């Protein structure tokens, strides 16, 4: 399939089109999330691994708030109608273009008519496909992030389907100047199947027995199959409450570890509701969110308790390091 010849193009900046040949297991449009409406019950959603999405956007010269595709385990097959610069970050799902392997964490140019496919998963769970100019689409309550449960954002609030068409937005920089830009090998994360996840004590830690945090940190928890973008159900040692698991519902956010009456923890993730009624024992630190996002059912989480101060320091250093490697582009 060929794009229109330049000479008949009426609009000088026709937005490059990407055709969805196969949608993959669960591919959604995500940006950094929908803020400002949690008081109305609107989930933040956004990329499960915001770090990987941000790296892709910065490699391409996009602003951090540009949307990309979050590709889960089994990737889509996409056809690029026009030439377009892209970067694939996060999980290595063996991306290829017309049969040739594509490098991860690197800007590559997809020629007009070329095809992007994903193969067998090598490591990680969620890959991010970012494109020069970002994936375009209507802003819904300030964000393009898909929240499938409430049908908000993305493509009418749902995952990609066969025959969908995506458009890239207008690129900020001449769209082939970034080709070859790459995240240095040493800076690329490895995604082990047992992740060391640091937590701070949660707002209701005092609703649990004194040793509950020590129990949480004493043995790895297994990620159960009923886990998704909303939350991870974890299986391991029971976490005992002092009296009851239930609290008067209050605000919850991604990273919170809540424990219902069955004493098995649930780690809330990007699509979590805005409020919840279970006691929250601990909160995963923001700096470890990327690692957790790359786990699959059957993988393990090994928890370590740190102080709030440590968590803040780590978050600052992760951001400073990213800014040093790839400075943000002001929109």
């Amino acid at each position, binding site marked *: 399939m060929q794009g229109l010849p330049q000479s008949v193009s009426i609009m000088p900046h026709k937005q490059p089109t990407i055709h969805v040949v196969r949608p993959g297991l669960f591919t959604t449009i995500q940006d950094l999330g929908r803020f400002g409406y949690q*008081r*109305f019950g609107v989930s933040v959603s956004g990329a499960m691994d915001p770090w990987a999405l941000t790296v892709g956007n910065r490699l391409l010269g996009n602003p951090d708030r540009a949307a990309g595709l979050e590709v889960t385990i089994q990737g889509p097959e996409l056809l690029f109608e026009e030439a377009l610069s892209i970067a694939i970050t996060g999980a290595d799902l063996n991306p290829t273009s017309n049969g040739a392997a594509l490098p991860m964490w690197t800007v590559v140019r997809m020629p007009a008519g070329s095809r992007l496919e994903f193969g067998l998963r090598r490591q990680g769970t969620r890959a991010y496909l970012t494109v020069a100019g970002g994936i375009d689409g209507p802003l819904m309550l300030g964000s393009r992030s898909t929240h499938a449960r409430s*049908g908000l954002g993305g493509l009418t609030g749902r995952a990609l389907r066969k025959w969908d068409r995506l458009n890239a937005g207008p690129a900020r920089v001449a769209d082939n100047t970034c080709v070859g830009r790459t995240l240095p090998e040493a800076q690329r994360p490895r995604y082990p199947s047992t992740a060391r996840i640091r937590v701070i004590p949660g707002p209701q830690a005092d609703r649990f027995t004194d040793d509950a945090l020590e129990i949480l940190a004493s043995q790895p928890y297994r990620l159960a199959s009923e886990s998704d973008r909303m939350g991870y159900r974890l299986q391991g040692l029971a976490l005992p409450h002092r009296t009851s698991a239930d609290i*008067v519902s209050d605000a919850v*956010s991604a990273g*919170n570890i809540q424990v219902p009456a069955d004493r098995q923890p649930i780690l809330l993730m990007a699509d979590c509701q*805005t*409020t919840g009624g279970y006691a929250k024992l601990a909160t995963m630190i923001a700096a470890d969110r990327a690692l957790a996002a790359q786990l699959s059912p059957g993988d393990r989480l090994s928890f370590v308790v740190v*102080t709030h101060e440590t968590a803040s320091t780590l978050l600052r250093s992760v951001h400073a390091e990213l800014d040093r490697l790839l400075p943000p582009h002001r929109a």
Partner: protein
Amino acid sequence: MGNHYRSDISPTDGPASMKQPETALPRIVPLSESALTIEFGETIDPRTNESVLAFATAVEQAGLQGFLEVVPTYRSATVYFDPFGADVSTMTEHFRALMTVTNTTPLRPPTTHTIPVWYGGSAGPDLGDVAKRAALTPEQVATLHASVIYRVYMLGFSPGFPYLGTVPDRIATPRLPTPRKQVAAGSVGIAGTQTGIYPHASPGGWRIIGRTPVPLFSLTRPAPFLLAPGDLVHFVPIGEIEFHALFENHT
């Protein structure tokens, strides 16, 4: 840095309080690196919720550096902020100051919404069960449910879902043992002493007694959400024909 289990981060607390989280209310507890929850009570009651709303309003108006949003709930307010743009200790000090003035902060008068509800029939599949448990007729349950002015304590669960309280004790009914796979948009349900409205078709475990034709959430309106925390809701029983007429009006 010695104590790993400290769960408050007040910079003004002395060494004696370092080992234990704050217990006196209101108290400030960290929810994450970018969120603090300020708890005003442990119960569902209008006074506590009033304090929460007054505090939330004061925080919004304070223009604090790095402030992102505040989420008022039954008994606490959670403030989200930019962890790089905000200074947590300054913010905590501000909150302490605001906590003490919230009793005197004038709130805007609450908006009262009149919401028509078709009780029973195909709109309220659980009305019969609620009536049976209360030893009332379905009509009496509807009359009782519509006899109270409800307070919107908070929104949560899904976009625009209001937690309203509290229903007359007589018709307070626990959730369904097994949630329904699909509840119609506009369905009005009871869970314990709470009542609520499902803005969208979704799974749900509340006992469904009726349905409103009024949309709670619409992106085509300038204000997408009909209800806000602190608003008041008055249900008015309508019949099936009126329901359909209003429903078509709204779509």
